[in-house]
Every structure is written in C-alpha cells, then in structure tokens.
C-alpha cells in the first residue's frame, strides 16, 4: 500500500468522491484557484470546474447555510471552514439548522453535508489564539450531528468518504499538525471507514489512554516510551465523538482500571469530561485509580509565542509522565 500524508488522504477522498458522484460539491474560502490554504483541494477546480468547486464570499454563516440548502436539494456539499476557529460565525447555521432539519421535519428532510475544519495547534503551528482552536466539544454536544476526528491517513480517507456518503451532517475535524507530519498506508482504491467505532491502537495491561486526532500520535509515542520501562498502555483512538463508542470505551477502561484521557482542547467541559463520565458510569467498579485528564488548560488558546505553544500543548513527555503516575498509583 502506498504511504501518504494525512492531507493527501483528504485530497484523495474528495477527488475520488467527486469523480464518483456528480452531486458532490466543495465550497469554502480559497478552495478553488488556491486549492485551499492548506492545499487540500489542489487541482480539484481544474478537474471539476467552478460550479462544483466554489470560492465563496468571506462569510462562514453563508457557507454553512448555502451548503445546507444545496444538501436539501440533491447535492452532497463539502463545506470547508478555513480554520475551525472561524466556524463560529456559522455556529447558528450548524446548531439550529443542519443538525435539526431531519428531526424537526420528522424525517421529511435531510442534510447530507460534510463540514471540514482544520483544527488544533501546538509547537510550530504558530496559529495563536484564532488559528489553533479545538472545537470538538461544542459540536459533539449537538444532537443530530456526527462529529469525527480521524487520526491516521487511512482513517482520514475512509472516514471522509463515509461522511460524504452519509445522509446526515458530519463535522469532520482535521488536525493541522497531522496534515504533513503524519504519514501512513492508504489504499489506492475505494473503501470507507464507519463513523462511530473507536479503535484500539495498542494493547497493554497497566493504563488505558483515550485520545484522538493528533494526540493519538503523541499518546502512541508515550506508550512506546513507557513500554521500555515496563509500563504497558492500551491506547484507544476515539475517532468519533458523535456517535461515541461507549462499549469500547467502557471495555478498555475495565481492562486496566487506570484511565488517562488526553486532548488538546481546553479541559473544562471538554470532550474528555464525557469520556471520564462514561468511565465513571460504566467501569467504576473496575477502577484502581482516579480517572485523570491531561488536556489544554482553561485559557482561551495557544499563544503565538513558541513558549506558549509548548506550555499549552500536551505531548508525549507529559502524557508519559501522567500515565506513569497512574500506573504507580
């Protein structure tokens, strides 16, 4: 299987789906001539034309709202928010509209829409307060949405294809650090990865680490490091927050009795709280140590200066430290 970067996988998924299905369209700021500011859609406007690859006005509410309308009338739009941070002007269209059309019409209408958003930051991203945010907790709280955060190029391609073919609105979150730094095997042809199931990426009997997106890789690095000194970690890739694979989470927590939840997003009321709550509900009697969260702190974001980037962001070393403490509890 060929090795690809995360962003190549995203590109290929869009390219193949647009070739396969003429109802798939892509819209967003700079997605056309520029091929996206991260170049995820390079070459697509040349291939599919400017009716299907649309350089939109600079107004996110309209990107989401127009995409909803397209989805109501037979298209399968992929709406790109240039940065997840700039999805908030579209929050109302996503929360009040996309997520609710099917339910509020008692199944009469549906909105097959994918909203792609590059998210996250960390050392070297230099995105500062407004080009680094993790936004998954907001969207995962909204009934009617599906919210996924693939970690590997394989999943990026397979889950994006599944999202495009899904008849519901899917928030598709792509970590910016993964784009070029994460490589992996990606089959050339067509395949999908279902939206929902978590995946156990590594098994170990001492500590269970839950992570997703770019933090999956930092967690795997930490687990590898810890293994050298005899601490064996289970690492669960929670690549879908909505739906959330409660069963796999509960089983993995019971397995080790020691749970570390990792995310880059702000700690309080973050996605880690839900995972910790599920553990406290479903695996409590198996726990040998308090649940622990290792997350971004409760400040608005990752400051621009490199010092702030390093201080804010969880990494393999911090994860290893926390997991070791848990193992030794």
């Amino acid at each position, binding site marked *: 299987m060929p090795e690809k970067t995360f962003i190549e996988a995203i590109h290929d998924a869009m390219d193949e789906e647009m070739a396969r299905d003429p109802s798939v369209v892509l819209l967003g700021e700079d997605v056309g001539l520029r091929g996206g500011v991260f170049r995820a859609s390079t070459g697509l406007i040349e291939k599919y034309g400017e009716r299907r690859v649309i350089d939109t006005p600079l107004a996110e509410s309209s990107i989401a*709202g127009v995409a909803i309308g397209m989805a109501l009338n037979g298209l399968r739009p992929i709406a790109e928010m240039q940065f997840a941070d700039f999805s908030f002007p579209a929050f109302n269209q996503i929360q009040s509209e996309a997520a609710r059309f099917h339910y509020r019409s008692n199944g009469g209408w549906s909105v097959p829409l994918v909203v792609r958003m590059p998210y996250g930051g960390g050392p070297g991203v230099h995105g500062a307060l407004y080009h680094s945010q993790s936004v998954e907790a907001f969207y995962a709280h909204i009934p009617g949405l599906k919210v996924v955060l693939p970690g590997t190029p394989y999943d990026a391609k397979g889950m994006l294809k599944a999202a495009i073919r899904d008849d519901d609105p899917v928030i598709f979150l792509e970590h910016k650090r993964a784009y070029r730094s994460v490589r992996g095997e990606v089959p050339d042809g067509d395949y999908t990865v279902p939206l929902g199931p978590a995946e156990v990426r590594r098994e170990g009997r001492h500590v269970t680490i839950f992570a997703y997106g770019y933090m999956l890789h930092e967690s795997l690095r930490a687990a590898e490091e810890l293994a050298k000194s005899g601490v064996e970690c289970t690492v669960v890739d929670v690549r879908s927050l909505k739906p959330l*694979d409660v069963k796999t989470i509960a089983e993995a927590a019971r397995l080790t009795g020691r749970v570390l939840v990792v995310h880059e997003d702000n700690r309080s009321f973050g996605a880690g709280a839900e995972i910790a709550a599920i553990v406290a509900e479903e695996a409590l009697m198996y726990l040998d140590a308090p649940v622990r969260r290792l997350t971004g702190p409760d400040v608005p974001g990752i400051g621009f200066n490199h010092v702030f980037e390093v201080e804010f962001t969880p990494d393999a070393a911090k994860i290893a430290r926390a997991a070791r403490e848990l193992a030794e509890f």
Partner: protein
Amino acid sequence: MADWKEAGLTAEDLVGMYRAMLLARRLDERQWVLNRMGRAPFVISCQGHEAAQVGCAWALTPGKDFVLPYYRDLGVVLTVGMTPREVMLDFLARAEGPSSGGRQMPGHYSHPRLRIVSQSSTVAVQALHAAGIAYAARMRGEDSVCYVSFGEGAAQQGDVHEAFNWAGIYRLPVIFVCENNKYAISVSHTKQMAVENVADRAAGYGFPGVVVDGSDPVAVYRAMKEAVERARKGEGATLIEAKVERLVPHSSDDDDRTYRSREEVEEAKKRDPLLTFAERLKKEGLLDDARREELEAEVKRAVDDATEYAEKAADPRPQDLYTRLYATAPAVGGEAAPGA
C-alpha cells in the same frame, strides 16, 4: 389597485385568490378560538398578510418551485397545496401532522412533496437555505425557483445579507419576500433600520428591489410573476417588499397594548385586505354577495372538517421523541435513548 387583466389574471383566478385569502383567515381565526378555549397553546397569525401571501404563491408552480415560508405564511402554504386538515394537524401538534409530527410549534411548515422546506423558529436563517437550494436547482438544470420570506425585523439579520450576496453573485433563482408589517413583536420598523424600505438594499447586491402594496393581491402577484419570470430565465433574484398590516398581536402570547395605540389598530383594520379585495371584486362584478356567502360557507365547512379531524387525531407517543434523529443509522449506539 393594480390592473388584473394586465397582470395576466383571469376572473377565476381572482375569485380563487379571494377564496384562498378567506380560507387562511378563517383557519387562523379558528386557531384563536381553540387557543382561547384552552385546546391549543399557541397561535401565530397571518391576519393582515393574506393578500401578500396569496398574491405571491399564486405565481408559483406548486410541487415544482421551492417554498421557504416563515411562520405567518399560512396563506402561502394553503395556496401551494397544504390542506386545512394538514394545517390543523400541525396546529394541534398531532402525530400525523406533516410538518413535524408534533415536534414543532404551529406555523413551522414543512411538506416535502410540496417542496415546502422545514422552517426553524430562528428567524432569517432560511434565506441562506433558499440560496443553496437555488444554486443546486440551477446546477442540476432544473428551472424551479425558490420563494423565501421573512419579516422586516428578521431582514436585519446578517444571514439575510449574506443570502442577498450569494443570490447576487450567482444570479440565483430566488425570490426574497419581505412582509413588512412595521413591527417585530413590539419594535417599530423605525428602530429596525434607518431607511424606509428593506427593498432599497437590493441595489447593493446587484438585483432589483421592489416595493408593493401588500394589501393588493393583484399588485403583489404582478411583482412576483415578474420576479419568477426573471428567475426562470436565469436573470437572477428579486427582493419584493410587501407593505402589510399586522391586524392582531404578534402571537397568542403577546399583548400589544403597551406598544400600539388602539386607534392605529382600528385604522389598520379599515385596510383589511380581505375587506378591500372583496369590495373590489364586487365593484368589478366578479363576486356578488351570494357567491361570497357561498364561499364563506364552503370555507367554514373546510375549517370545521379540519378542526374535527385534527382534534380526533392521535398525539405522538412518548417513544416518538427518540426517532428520526439521523437519516443514516449510526454505526454505534443506535437510536437516541432516554437521558436517564
């Protein structure tokens, strides 16, 4: 009042329009009665807007053109084909109600077969959906147009401007209709904007804005017909602003006495489009008193039937709360479950 022959209407059309206005009014009045009897918690009225609504909808091709009404548009949805029974089922939040099966408040119309698109309570959002629907229609080679409406208060939302902008750039077959009744709940249009007409803003987006007398269904029809023709020909969007009167409080939860003088309301009632249009039809010899009473009787029968039907219809069951959350079944977890 506008010349109906010039507008391309027949005598039959005119009586049909009157009947549609009458049906909307009487259904609306019945809703207030049911509300005051304690049988329905909420009414939001079309009273005073009927001429604008029927005039607009008369220019549409039902089932082909998309309709994104707002909560006052009872006259629109009836004209494009919703039945009184359907309206009353929705009004009483019955399981069988086509719009939402009892999930949404009255006035939140949806009817996929009629291409009436489900509406939110959140005002103005539908303007963007209309742009997207129209974009898709054009891309797929359909010559359908898209009607979308909102009040002059809602017109102040950023989403409306972003929708205007898309419609302008892509010359989309959308007809934006602003039913300007001078109030957003209690707030006067003079506090909503510094200009006289919402329609004046269309120029800033590159398509025509038209002001019409919303108490004259013929004038509204004429403006709408022109807009529909432009749209079908690929010449783009139009914004039609119909100046109307809201004859009742904002909703059954409202009491308008703190913000609207009784004299003003009385004045408005003198211009009630149902009265003025009937008078005109009479003057033109198209509707005598006998025919009018026949229509009243016919409409009353329809309203009675709808009420009776809907009152007997079943409520949704508790377990219906959890269904139809997703169109594609999720790969884990299944349907939504009680939160306990």
